[in-house]
């Protein structure tokens, strides 16, 4: 165990020593890998910021059924059974709430502060309404249900309120998948860059490798510094990419704040959670390690 640790310490020191010896090429490689990593990290930051917004919104489709203004109150209340029977079998547990026109007016006065203006109207302009919070229903089935409800006697308008949230959630799912594909593609790019960097190192250190073999170094001993080189490149590039994305949030938030204010929102992009950042660094280090491992196995085997 002591020898194993000692060998790893030596390999790490060798890797650092060689990277420091060529600072220009090291910095360039870090930059190239960081650019490749920054794109998926930026995408992930965006998704992580949007996710809580969508979670706050109800994702159950909601239907508002507005009755004709001249519908008698008892007929309006009796419509509940007609609505329930129009629901698909799987959605029978949906919540149906009746909002009488008087209550609707009170709510409006309370929430908008337009009480005085509404009083001047003389009569209540709001109809009786039903709010249906649908359970276990397909987005596709919502439209069919809306049509059935529209056909009920006394119904003036049917408004599907929450389908857009479902659509947004579906869109986010597509974005997540696209991000995953982008990350996978750029992961391959990162590995290719590190593969090539390590290949060049193997070529420039050919003599050292040959001498090491002649003095009794095992393959593991010779390979190890290259593995550390790959992992270090990955970690450094990951750090640069995370820092770049985090710094880019500042000017972006300036523009977003303006936009969000128009919708009375306080929405801001925030940096990724430190735990996620650590996980991303581990992934970039692993990508570097894998790129180096493929390169070392391929190119060292060819050396005498």
């Amino acid at each position, binding site marked *: 165990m002591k020898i194993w640790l000692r060998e790893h310490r030596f390999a790490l020191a060798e890797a650092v020593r060689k990277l420091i*010896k060529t600072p220009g090429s090291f910095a360039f490689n870090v930059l190239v890998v960081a650019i490749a990593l920054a794109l998926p990290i930026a995408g992930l930051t965006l998704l992580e910021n949007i996710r809580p917004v969508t979670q706050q919104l109800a994702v159950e489709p909601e239907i508002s059924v507005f009755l004709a203004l001249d519908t008698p109150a008892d007929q309006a209340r009796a419509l509940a059974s007609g609505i329930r029977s129009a629901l698909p079998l799987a959605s029978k547990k949906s919540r149906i709430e009746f909002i009488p026109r008087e209550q609707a007016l009170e709510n409006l006065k309370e929430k908008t502060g337009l009480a005085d203006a509404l009083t001047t109207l003389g009569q209540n302009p709001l109809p009786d309404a039903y709010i249906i919070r649908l359970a276990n229903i397909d987005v596709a089935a919502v439209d069919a249900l809306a049509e059935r409800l529209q056909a009920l006697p006394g119904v003036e308008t049917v408004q599907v309120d929450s389908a857009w949230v479902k659509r947004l959630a579906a869109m986010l799912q597509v974005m997540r998948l696209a991000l995953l594909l982008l990350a996978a593609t750029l992961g391959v790019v990162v590995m290719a860059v590190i593969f090539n960097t390590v290949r060049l190192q193997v070529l420039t250190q050919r*003599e050292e490798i*040959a*001498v*090491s073999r002649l*003095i*009794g170094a095992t*393959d593991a*001993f010779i390979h190890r510094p290259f593995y550390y080189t790959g992992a270090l490149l990955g970690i450094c590039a990951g750090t640069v990419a995370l820092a770049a994305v985090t710094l880019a949030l500042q000017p972006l938030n300036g523009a977003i704040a303006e936009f969000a204010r128009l919708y009375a929102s306080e929405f801001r992009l925030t940096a990724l959670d430190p735990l996620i950042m650590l996980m991303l660094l581990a992934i970039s280090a692993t990508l570097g390690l894998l790129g180096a491992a493929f390169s070392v196995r391929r190119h060292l085997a060819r050396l005498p």
Partner: protein
Amino acid sequence: MIEFQHVSKSYAHGVAALTDINLTVAKGELVFLAGPSGAGKSTLLKLIAAIERPSSGKVTLNGQDVGKLKRAALPYLRRNLGLIFQQQRLLQDRTVLANVMLPLIVTGASKAEAQQRALAALDKVGLLERAKAEPQALSGGEQQRAAIARAIVNRPQLILADEPTANLDRDSANQVLEALKAFHSAGVTCLISTHDEQFLDSATRVIYLRQGQLIETWRKEAA
């Protein structure tokens, strides 16, 4: 200690480097391999260190068939050998001391132990004061002595030196040879290839090779 049984070696392009070599070297011997360039001296040494594999025949070292060793076993064979080359093959990007420490580091020795033993080895070849120098700052003879220090730092049972005095002036060559003889006196078996006839006067055993064939071998009887 070393035995060649009907060993032949041909390279890929069909050139026969060695043909039907039969040879035995006992433990503690100092053997010179002589012959013109291209005679097969280097190939013979490479076969012992398993840098090359025989095309036919058997090379054994302490009873072990080195030609059949698996790749993973080679480092452990070489840790018991001291290899010295015509080109010193010192690593230019580290100090002389770091070069000499390397064979110990690869075996898992601690830095302190490796440094102590490397300094002792450099002392034995008279290079202690150049320990911190870069190899390119050393003369050819000093570089070769540094290479000898690297070869003996692991206290090998056998030293294989391939033309260690080539490209050196007379004084430097003598110093290198004296260093090798000192290790032989300490009980290390030495095989030294040379095409410099003048060094053979001091040899106790000489093996002549020509065009890959062993043509003559002689021993000087102990006085």
